[in-house]
């Protein structure tokens, strides 16, 4: 095992349906938390709806990590049924290790070819001897020993998790864990290797454990969302499911709609009623929402849409990640329809960005689309409690009762005070037809221009402050990226710096409106720019070209999903610039 990874280990647990690889993975990540580590976990499933093979892809480290590593140090296979399905997701190196059950048969060719060292542990047989013992708990024991985790903590965790299932299950799980933890084959193999340098113990402060969807949910309610409308779609469903009881707890509600056309219109209706409102969806659903998003823009009704990107086009690869709805989010509305597009950069940033988006949508009375992706949404992290500060953002400007109220009044800021139903004497009719200041439909050129300018100005002239991008490091080389590629780029940046390169990593959080002056400022002394994105057609690159000027030598690292971009790919591209 590569010593540079000793305090940063990537491991995969695979197994067929029901073998419990995901459960084992989850417990291992929790244990990592209890052992002062940080970590991250992705799940990968075969095509079956349920019960097919599954892989837990885990990274455990002594520092907070925000993306997966390039390759895996260790693969534990509960069995080999269809495990080759995961071969491309679990890149092993010649110095990686495989732990497998000899009873599971031959190791698939895809893994064998590498000449990786294999430790055979009869997990099934060990479990069989234990009442209610399961091989995945043996595996958890093996891995916990390998990682040097505390077995007491593991016991407590098992009690906590399986407690409800009764004595037998809990006891069996504990026993199976111990069988693995103390298995001589592993103990010996471990001893034969350099003990992992535990290095500095991780930050002992509070750790947060959540996935990107939950992060967005939290950001949304922090921002003030109290109504949501929902139509399920992978990988956004669990964000909606997370919101439902929590909105209710906060005195709000979530309504399951008949389709996305309904859900976005419900959001607009609720927001017209004065309640900050949102929905969440993914590409195909966002496509169905663009017409109504135009209505929200034209009628100046705040609305937030979290779009969790997945592989496209069309139904594409719903369970995998890609950064390919940028085009639609930025340009997908008909007519000249200025709105906001934000992209969350990592798990913690899902909270910040969504809260910011809600506040901006409310302040600017427009649509804010938050882009995340399956990578962020459905992987969990174990990180220090995220802290952030948002700039002051005014709340929705509410009209006080006035006679002669003009809903679409031309104001300096471009924001027209909004009357909320219930307010006496300020009744008005919101309209998607072009209108005068009072809201009367109008086809006059002057009214159209005035309202177009107002809707554009309120966004263009707003001071978005320093949150438009997240910038790390300095140097003449810049990596310019967005979304979930940002964490990868940051890790690449750190590695490049460690190797003596001066690299600046710029991740755009605010995509629309664009911030050309701010970026130009950041690029002043930059001579090389690498644009990184997970899209075959280079959507981000074309977006940048449309709104920004680049003088430096600009190149792209763009490729489609489903495999995430790795830090190594970025490092290589920079190192072999020439």
């Amino acid at each position, binding site marked *: 095992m590569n010593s540079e990874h000793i305090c940063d280990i990537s491991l995969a647990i695979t197994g067929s349906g029901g073998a419990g690889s995901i459960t084992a993975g989850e417990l291992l990540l929790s244990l990592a938390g209890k052992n002062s580590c940080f970590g991250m976990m992705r799940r990968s499933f075969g095509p079956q709806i349920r019960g097919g093979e599954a892989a837990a892809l885990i990274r455990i480290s002594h520092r907070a990590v925000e993306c997966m590593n390039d390759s895996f140090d260790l693969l534990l296979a509960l069995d080999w049924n269809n495990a080759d399905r995961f071969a491309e997701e679990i890149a092993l190196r010649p110095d990686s290790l495989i732990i497998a059950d000899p009873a599971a048969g031959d190791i698939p060719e895809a893994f064998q070819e590498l000449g990786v060292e294999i430790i055979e542990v009869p997990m099934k047989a060990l479990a069989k001897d234990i009442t209610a013992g399961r091989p995945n708990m043996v595996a958890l024991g093996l891995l916990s020993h390998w990682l040097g985790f505390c077995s007491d903590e593991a016991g407590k965790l098992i009690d906590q998790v399986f407690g409800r299932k009764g004595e037998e299950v809990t006891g069996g799980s504990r026993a199976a864990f111990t069988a693995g933890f103390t298995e001589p084959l592993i103990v010996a193999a471990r001893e034969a290797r350099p003990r992992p340098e535990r290095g500095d113990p991780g930050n002992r402060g509070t750790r947060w*454990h959540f996935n990107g969807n939950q992060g967005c949910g*939290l950001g949304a309610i922090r921002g003030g969302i109290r109504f949501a409308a929902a139509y399920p779609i992978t990988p956004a469903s669990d964000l909606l499911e997370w919101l439902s009881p929590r909105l209710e707890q906060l005195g709000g509600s979530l309504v399951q709609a008949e389709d996305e056309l309904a859900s976005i219109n419900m959001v*607009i*209706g609720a927001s017209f*009623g004065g309640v900050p409102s949102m929905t969440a969806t993914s590409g195909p659903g966002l496509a169905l929402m663009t017409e109504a998003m*135009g209505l929200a823009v034209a009628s100046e009704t705040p609305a937030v849409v979290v779009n969790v990107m997945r592989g496209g086009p069309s139904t594409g690869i719903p369970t995998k990640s890609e950064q390919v709805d940028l085009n639609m989010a930025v340009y997908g509305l008909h007519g000249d329809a200025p709105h906001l597009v934000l992209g969350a950069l990592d798990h913690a940033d899902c909270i910040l960005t969504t809260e910011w988006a809600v506040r901006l949508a409310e302040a600017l009375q427009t649509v804010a689309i938050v882009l995340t992706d399956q990578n962020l949404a459905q992987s969990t992290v174990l990180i220090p409690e995220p802290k952030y500060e948002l700039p002051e953002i005014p709340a929705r400007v509410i009209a006080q009762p006035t006679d002669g109220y003009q809903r679409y009044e031309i104001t300096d800021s471009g924001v027209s005070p909004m009357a909320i139903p219930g307010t006496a004497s300020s*009744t008005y009719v919101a309209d998607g037809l072009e209108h005068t200041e009072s809201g009367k439909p109008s086809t006059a050129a002057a009214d159209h221009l005035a309202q177009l300018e107002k809707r554009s100005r309120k966004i263009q002239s707003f001071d978005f402050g320093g949150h438009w991008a997240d910038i790390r490091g300095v140097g003449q080389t810049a990596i310019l990226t967005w979304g979930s590629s940002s964490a990868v780029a940051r890790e690449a940046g750190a590695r490049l710096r460690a190797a003596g390169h001066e690299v600046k990593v710029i991740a755009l959080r605010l995509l629309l409106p664009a911030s050309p002056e701010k970026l130009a400022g950041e690029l002043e002394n930059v001579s090389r720019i690498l644009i990184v994105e997970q899209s075959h057609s280079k959507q981000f690159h074309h977006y940048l070209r449309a709104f920004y000027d680049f003088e430096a030598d600009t190149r792209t690292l763009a490729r489609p999903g489903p495999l995430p971009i790795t830090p190594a790919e970025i490092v290589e591209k920079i190192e072999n610039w020439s």
Partner: protein
Amino acid sequence: MDQAAQQIALTPKDFKSALKPVWCPGCGDFAVLNAITKALAFMGLPREEVALISGIGCSSRIAAYTSVYGFHGVHGRALALASGLKAARGDLTVLVAGGDGDGLSIGGNHFIHACRRNMDMTYIIMDNEVYGMTKGQASPTTAPDWADSKLTPHGTGIRPFQPAGLALTAGASFIARGFTGDPNGLAKILVAAIGHKGFSFVQALSPCPTFRPEQMLWKHHVKAFDQEISSNPVEAAQRIQADDGMSTGIIYQNERPVFRPGTGVDNGMGSIESEFTI
């Protein structure tokens, strides 16, 4: 005069806005507007506590001609917009109005789902059996042999929907039909519909003299249902089927649980944030 008394004193005219309707002379929609404003005045509802939501079409322009809160949304989505508003603002009286195309063609899915959901709101389809706004194409209520549209020059050849029947099967808890030739009758129906707890559906036969001039003869065919309001869906279904679609009155009313999401009680964020910590 105290405020309540002041509100009761609102006349139908007070519920009209200053805008001049774009409707053609003779359009039935004027009478729907009159009936709505009459009903609201009669019920003594404060203007600011009423919202009228509409889609797109000649009829959907109606929102702008009233003085209550209004939203002239996009084509076919008025019910969804209204459902969001009502979900978030259960205190408001929510009316929805629009055309047969808006409600039964592009908006058909929201129609059946709104009937099923049974939120407390009133939906008025201003039925002229045609797409007026786009210059006269067949709608889902157009007879199959109406051949005056260039889009379907031999007629649609398709059996029209019976909106009341569809509403009943989909779950509406109040179903009525009115006629713009009898705006007072229509206003009375609207008073009952708005008063009903749950989703009330009113089909307002509203002629389009421009594209369906033959509808000016409707006044000779329209008659009152000769039966009492039914609360039995099977009976109501039979009555709707047996009728030629020209009988007016309240057909069906049967209160059932109203959908009201949330409790309105705020128990605070505390426990939510703590879920994230391990």
